[in-house]
């Protein structure tokens, strides 16, 4: 017997009364839930003029608003390079520090050290920018003997510190969530800690660590203030391309510098919004991918417990 036709037989279940309270909750909830879509839609609508008028030329390497050239490639390139540098530094350091952190036996000490390191995330990005301006760029200029320390590498270095707490905390969560029985059984086989980590901990913590990495990537891409202050703001591809000791530009630093100067409704403004739209789409994809990884992990844990 199936209940597909139950609705026909049963009196309709009385719906929740549409009183003002329910309406208020439902209305606010849907308004809140639609904000993300609203932002995307706004950006998409506003970037339409640029797509229509500048079109394919936006995929060039020249950004000269006075000549009607809006090539966003240097910015996209800068964003990706800065992100890659930050990740190359922060991922190994963060994960290894998380491994070490999870080795601390006293729960109290571990929580304390973790909370301390999470404090890194509490420092506002503008303060990181100030640190970059006053110290980091000076150090970089001294070490590499440059005219200015405001280069792509400095931005990447600073970003690596900023995304470190994300990677560290979430990796530590993942490592700590690995059932003790697994590590104990591995240890009982006479494995070294390295081998335990590689064979017992990493396989089950890897999706979560990967998710942490994706979230960190998203943060790195979207970071504005710190990068804007120290990247040098030069709308050119570095030459040669791998020269990270030259000034550059990211999508966010471009936006931070130029949105104020462009007129609303102009192609210039619209082209900037288009680059923002690309940025948002990339970061959103990263965030959603990370959440899918987290969700999948939660599910496997659930199965283990059943």
């Amino acid at each position, binding site marked *: 017997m199936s209940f597909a036709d139950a609705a026909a037989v049963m009196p309709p279940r009385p719906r929740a009364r549409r009183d003002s309270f329910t309406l208020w909750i439902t209305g606010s909830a849907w308004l809140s839930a639609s904000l993300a879509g609203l932002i995307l839609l706004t950006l998409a609508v506003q970037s339409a003029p640029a797509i229509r008028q500048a079109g394919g030329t936006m995929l060039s390497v020249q950004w000269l608003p006075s000549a009607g050239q809006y090539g966003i490639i240097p910015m996209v390139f800068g964003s990706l390079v800065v992100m890659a540098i930050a990740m190359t530094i922060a991922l190994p350091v963060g994960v290894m520090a998380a491994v070490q952190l999870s080795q601390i036996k006293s729960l109290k000490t571990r929580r304390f050290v973790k909370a301390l390191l999470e404090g890194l995330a509490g420092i506002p990005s503008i303060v990181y920018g100030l640190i970059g301006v006053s110290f980091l760029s000076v150090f970089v200029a001294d070490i590499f003997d440059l005219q200015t320390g405001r280069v792509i590498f400095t931005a990447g270095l600073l970003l690596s*510190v900023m995304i470190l707490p994300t990677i560290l905390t979430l990796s530590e969560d993942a490592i700590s969530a690995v059932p003790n029985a697994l590590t104990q059984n591995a240890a009982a086989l006479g494995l070294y800690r390295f081998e335990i980590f590689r064979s017992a901990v990493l396989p089950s913590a890897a999706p979560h660590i990967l998710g942490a990495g994706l979230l960190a990537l998203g943060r790195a891409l979207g970071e504005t203030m710190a990068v804007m202050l120290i990247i040098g703001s030069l709308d050119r591809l570095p030459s040669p391309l791998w020269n990270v000791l030259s000034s550059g530009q990211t999508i966010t630093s471009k936006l931070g510098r130029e949105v104020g100067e462009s007129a609303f409704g102009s192609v210039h403004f619209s082209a900037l919004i288009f680059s923002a739209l690309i940025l948002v789409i990339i970061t959103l994809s990263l965030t959603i991918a990370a959440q899918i990884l987290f969700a999948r992990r939660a599910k496997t844990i659930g199965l283990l417990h059943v």
Partner: protein
Amino acid sequence: MSRRALSDRAFRLAGYIALGLCLCVLGALLFAIAYAGLKAVSFDFLVMPSKDFGAAGGIRWQIIGSLLMAVTASALVLPFATALAVYRADMARSARVKRFIDLSVFSLNGIPSIAYGLFGLIVFVNILGTGLSWFVGSIILAMMMMPTVTHCALSAMQSLPSGVRENGYALGLTRRAVITRITLPQSLHGIVTGLMIGLARAIGETAPIMFIATAFSGVSLPSGLQGPVSTLPTHILALAQQATNPDALRNAWGASFVLIGLVFLFSTAAFIARTRLNPYSERL
């Protein structure tokens, strides 16, 4: 030593180095901020208005502007985030709706802060014609706080002991009564924690408000909902851009120190709220 033992040694060493490095970076940052900040901070610095484009005087209006925007933002986000969490926890039945809400909250969290600023610039400042307005800035900050507050409130609601709501329904309470008398009071700690974490983040944000809500100098209190204020982060930004002027830089550090102090204050409040307000923490 065998190769296995050797790689194990290397692994352990790498762990120590990585953790040590993190702690050193943290220590260096805190030291730098405290050292450079304390040189600038004095009682006068806190209560005097700024002069000479920030190079002299204090940061009175910046502190007040930051607090005004952050507090307004939390007042704005509170009903909406709570409603969303309640809807997700107690009302939404279909799995698809729940997934949509989750996705939306995650997305909102993943959108870069500068995109919020652009949204505010386009929709409020230009299309709705508000001009520079601190209140619009607060609305945008409230949007940024939304995922944090919703997430904290929702996790508190979902971690209520199983059956409290069912027991309420079994006593003949209406859904409204279950929400207002069981769900909300018992997850208050989550809501307050989320609000405090959100505040700690919002008060340090620069990118979302710099186009729409702030002006650098010559601003005191706004007379209405429109008009800009001056805030700590945008003040620091302006000063950092004249980094060749040592006085400006010194005051930038002073403002940073105060800003971090405020962040610390709200973070501590969040921590206290999480433990003290939880009606079940006595049993844990």
